């Protein structure tokens, strides 16, 4: 037997088996048993004694006796080992195996069979037929009990197998649906735009080449056509964004929201200047656990919205604040826009829902935002700004896990 700690890996076995005392005990027990057997086998004047049990059964033939002794011993040892393995398996899987008690019943049944075989060896030298008989009683009880309990199990196991098959079928179905969706996206991206280009370009050519022959009314119609085409193009672009935001790879990590805000500010520079919008984050924003790109989408959409729905005569103002509670962070975007009626506060996050037909938009932006937030296991909602007017969008995200203090050098921001 190998020294403790080398063949058994502590930590991967339940504590009891990993305990050195257990392993030493097992070694000593094994050595004693083997020693006793050898002693018995070698030292005994084999069949030399008149009146040995089985004397006539084994025809006074030493080789036959050996055959029975060795095979019975091996069978008994193997049975014991099998039941120990089953026991460990059930223990380790800790009820992860369906019908785990059946395994234990099997273990008992097998160990009892093993004992029966050991007794066969013993009775060759010692006529302990009563003991042997009692062992057989235990074996019989375990065997009969196991035999009975496994019968009603058959339909249940079959159902389990059927369920597993059904689950597999569903998984394949979902995979198929995913592929279909992928193809659908591809087709939208490639095919839906081609007719639009035709419409747009040829109506434009009509204006350019034949504009003089057209009445002002006809030209106005053509302009409306152009606007419709542009709207359809924006719809396709946003729908594709919505479709891909749920599918792109997610990288959850600690993200500095201040960094996100800085990036989005520069991405929206032109828009912000045009509207003379003021965006303020009075306090530094805390880091969150999220995906940097998805957070950019969230910030861009919410800021875009906040400055869009503001009466033209007033300056759009957005204040970004954050609160940390335990392991969550709530980011709030408070604007001075026209506000959202309480009835519509749920609806606006749905696809194609629009509040204002006068403002340009596809009705997809907030649906994209919600999807991005939900992918980061967060939540989003809106309430009235206080004191108002305007609204306050809130985004609840997981806080960044506490880390060792950051190194002083601003090493590698993303």
């Amino acid at each position, binding site marked *: 037997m190998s020294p403790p700690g080398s063949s058994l890996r502590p930590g991967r076995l339940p504590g009891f088996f990993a305990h050195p005392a257990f392993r030493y005990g097992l070694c000593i027990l094994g050595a004693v048993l083997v020693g006793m057997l050898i002693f018995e086998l070698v030292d005994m004047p084999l069949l030399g004694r008149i009146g040995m049990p089985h004397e006539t059964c084994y025809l006074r033939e030493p080789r036959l006796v050996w055959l029975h002794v060795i095979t019975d011993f091996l069978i008994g040892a193997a049975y014991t080992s099998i039941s120990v393995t089953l026991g460990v398996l059930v223990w380790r899987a800790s009820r992860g195996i369906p019908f785990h008690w059946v395994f234990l019943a099997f273990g008992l049944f097998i160990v009892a069979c093993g004992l029966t075989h050991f007794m066969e060896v013993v009775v060759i030298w010692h006529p302990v037929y009563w003991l042997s008989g009692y062992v057989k009683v235990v074996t019989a009880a375990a065997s009969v009990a196991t035999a009975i309990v496994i019968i009603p199990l058959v339909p249940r196991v079959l159902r389990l197998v059927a369920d597993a098959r059904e689950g597999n079928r569903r998984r394949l179905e979902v995979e198929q649906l995913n592929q279909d969706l992928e193809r659908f*996206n*591809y087709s939208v*991206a*490639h*095919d839906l*735009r*081609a007719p*639009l*280009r*035709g419409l*747009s*370009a*040829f109506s*434009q*050519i009509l204006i*350019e080449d034949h504009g003089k022959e057209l009445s002002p009314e006809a030209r106005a119609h053509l302009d409306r056509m152009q606007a419709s*085409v*542009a709207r359809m*193009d924006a719809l396709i*672009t946003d729908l*594709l964004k919505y479709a*891909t935001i749920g599918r*792109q790879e997610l990288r959850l990590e600690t993200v500095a929201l201040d960094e996100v805000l800085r990036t989005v500010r520069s991405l929206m520079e032109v828009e912000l200047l045009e509207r003379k919008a003021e965006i303020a984050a009075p306090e530094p924003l805390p880091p969150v656990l999220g995906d940097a790109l998805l957070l950019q989408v969230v910030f861009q959409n919410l800021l875009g919205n906040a400055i869009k729905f503001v009466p033209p005569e007033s300056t759009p103002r957005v204040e970004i604040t954050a609160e940390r509670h335990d392991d969550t962070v709530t980011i709030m975007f408070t604007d001075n826009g026209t506000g959202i009626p309480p009835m519509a506060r749920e609806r606006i996050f749905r696809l194609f829902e629009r509040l204002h037909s006068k403002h340009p938009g596809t009705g997809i932006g907030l649906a994209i935002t919600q999807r991005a937030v939900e992918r980061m296991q967060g939540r989003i909602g809106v309430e009235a700004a206080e004191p108002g007017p305007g609204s306050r969008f809130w985004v609840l995200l997981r806080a960044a896990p506490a880390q060792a203090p950051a190194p002083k050098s601003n090493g590698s921001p993303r």
Partner: protein
Amino acid sequence: MTKKVLLLAEDDDNDALLLQRALHRADAPFRVVRVNNGEEAVAYLSGQGSFSDRQTHPLPDLLLLDLKMPRMDGFEVLRWRLAQSMLIIPVIVFSSSTIERDIRQAYELGASSYAAKPIRSEALDHFVHALVAWWAGVNFSGSRIPT
């Protein structure tokens, strides 16, 4: 100034017409040869069948490649080109798609450039001017490397 040969692989007649019109209006120094799908593009580039005469069907200086085409799409053309060690023609993918996956895949398959087909004709004119300025002006094509 000798005109460069531009092979246009495009299945949509409207798109082909609009591009040719824009090139014509910009007085672009390109002789445009159009094929209708990827299979024809490959046949042209390898000089098979009716394209075997290089007098009438010269090797192009530039390939403008649509992605979604019947029979053989743009990605397959790019894959085929990767296997041709002697073919060093720059390929500009010109597609409707702005999906990141398509763009990345095109570059992975060795596209030289990727442009989205514009909706507005001003944008198309802008594309054509850039095309002329870079690919007929600044850029050296593989077959025209000065010695």
